[in-house]
């Protein structure tokens, strides 16, 4: 009699405790928010880089359609710094942006975890007007060089100067945005520009006298995928699925057969032209550009970059790299997709490590 009364109550109690738990565990997010830090240049959305591959292939949309999860791509104005602001406000679950702003953000208190190396090998160029007499960096001593400061290309610029025994004081450094710098060079208001003015180079309005193609590979910029730790804690399986799709897109982009299609998509996105993309990736397979491996090369890259930023007082705190990244997701993705040997790791100097 007592049991007949008590048992239903116990069952009800158990159910009322267990059901919400089960329900919460199976609950997916309704939306996955991905902020893309390449931002906009000349007002057009810039979806270059490895994340452009993922967007083009609609990897996330098709993967999560059956779960009813919406994918939200968040544009930012102001590129890297804009992404830091979005992340600081908890406005995104995943982020794709470059080495420089990511380090700056981490030093400033943005807490995200690095889970996929996105792409490497972004070049910077020292360009001059086509009729300029300057042939080397030394020829430009005392002259005006335009560069957008506190942005990724400041790192290779400073190191390139240092390698040549020079410093900012040996030139007149003019701080101009990308658009203004290119206009200033075209109008000969400055004698040189450091950055990647691909439109000027394409049209022959500027001539490159040096580039990171022929310098230390570590001077080339990179961009990665980061995840919000709170989101990761709640939905680790979702994170793994996102990583799988991203690596799949990188594999597609790395395939030499797709090289021209990749260049065309970069051109359509407004982040480059086919000519510029070919110039960027001259002499290398896209498999090198879109490598998702946490190899010596990329880890050393960040160690050198974080040290540099701290030395130059561009960040106030020293950023540690080892507790920043988590290679497990990529490792799992490579296994799931059967791509363990598809990409070759690079050593600290960028040389491929023989398997």
């Amino acid at each position, binding site marked *: 009699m007592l049991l007949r009364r008590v048992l239903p109550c116990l069952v009800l109690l158990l159910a009322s405790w267990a059901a919400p738990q089960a329900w919460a565990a199976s609950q997916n997010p309704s939306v996955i928010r991905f902020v893309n830090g390449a931002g906009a240049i000349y007002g057009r959305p810039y979806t270059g880089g490895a994340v452009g591959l993922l967007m083009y292939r609609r990897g996330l949309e098709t993967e999560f359609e059956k779960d009813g999860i919406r994918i939200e791509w968040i544009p930012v104005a102001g590129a890297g*710094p804009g992404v830091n602001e979005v992340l600081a406000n908890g406005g995104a679950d995943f982020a794709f942006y470059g080495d420089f702003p990511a380090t700056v953000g981490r030093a400033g208190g943005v807490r995200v975890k690095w889970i996929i190396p996105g792409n490497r090998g972004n070049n910077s160029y020292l360009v001059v007007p086509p009729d300029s007499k300057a042939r080397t960096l030394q020829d430009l001593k005392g002259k005006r060089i335009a560069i957008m400061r506190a942005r990724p290309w400041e790192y290779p610029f400073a190191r390139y100067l240092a390698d040549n025994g020079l410093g900012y004081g040996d030139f007149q450094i003019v701080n101009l945005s990308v658009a203004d710098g290119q206009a200033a060079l075209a109008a000969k208001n400055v004698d040189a520009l450091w950055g990647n003015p691909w439109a000027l180079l394409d049209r022959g309005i500027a001539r490159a006298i040096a580039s990171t193609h022929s310098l230390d590979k570590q001077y080339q910029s990179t961009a990665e995928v980061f995840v919000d730790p709170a989101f990761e804690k709640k939905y680790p399986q979702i994170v793994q699925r996102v990583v799988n799709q991203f690596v799949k897109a990188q594999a597609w982009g790395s395939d030499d057969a797709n090289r021209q299609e990749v260049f065309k998509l970069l051109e359509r996105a407004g982040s480059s032209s086919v000519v510029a993309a070919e110039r960027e990736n001259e002499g290398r397979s896209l498999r090198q550009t879109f490598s998702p491996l946490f190899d010596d090369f990329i880890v050393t890259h960040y160690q050198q970059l974080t040290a540099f930023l701290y030395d130059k007082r561009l960040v106030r705190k020293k950023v540690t790299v080892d507790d920043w990244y988590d290679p497990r997701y990529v490792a799992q993705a490579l296994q799931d997709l059967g791509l363990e040997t598809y990409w070759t790791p690079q050593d600290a100097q960028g040389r491929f490590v023989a398997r």
Partner: protein
Amino acid sequence: MPRVVSSRAEIRPAPAAAPPARIGRRVLHRLERAVLFALPAVIVFGGWAMLAAAEVIPSTVLIPPLDVLRTILDMARSGELAEHLGRSASRVLGGYAIGAPIGLVVGLGFGLSPRVRAYGDLLFHALRQVPAFAWAPLLILIFGIGELFKIAVIALAVFFPVVLATYEGIRDIPARYGDVARLYRLTRAQELGRLVLPAAVPSMVTGLRLALSRAWMMLVGVELLGASSGIGWMMDWGRSLFQLDLVMAGIVVTGLVGLLLDRGLRAAEARLLHWQPSR
């Protein structure tokens, strides 16, 4: 005949020993004014501190007021603040020194000469609608990307409001002033110097004050264009390097300096126009 006595003298009571009470009232009055003045500041800073502490907005984005104060003091101590303020001030004052006098002259031209008005009115009002920044690419082409072009942008921003204020100051002079001039058979020069200009001065002075405020406010934007020092540059630098305390420090300093400029000019305005009955 009975002496007519002032009724007031008889009815008014003898003055009591008032001095101590009057002083006390004055102090109280001052205190009341001080509290009213400080209250909004206390509410703003207190609210700011509480929001930051409660992490309603993350403290990496909304820097607590004490941290901002520390940043300001550090920069003051290292001389950076003085350097940036000096650069910004030189740009504003340079632009003002060019834009304001030219604006006064052109405004006077518009106000006094129907022919100038006929030729220039449409063009002036059309150009006035163009935001000062929109001139930047053109100015860069003319002046290059150094200090001169930044001063030119500010001069433009100062020019238009001064012209307008001067022109309207003259236009709004009541017609009967002209009648007075004719009545007294004043020469053109006398009419100008003793009637028109003094009547237009209040509007001109207000215009000059507003133009300076505007010039200071434009500073941040102007310094985004190829500067490597200055308060506006400092704020952009802080944003790029995710050191938002620099941004907040810039906001506080810009606000304070702008306030000082405004108050200072208002005081000068009051001195200049003390003859006005309404003051």
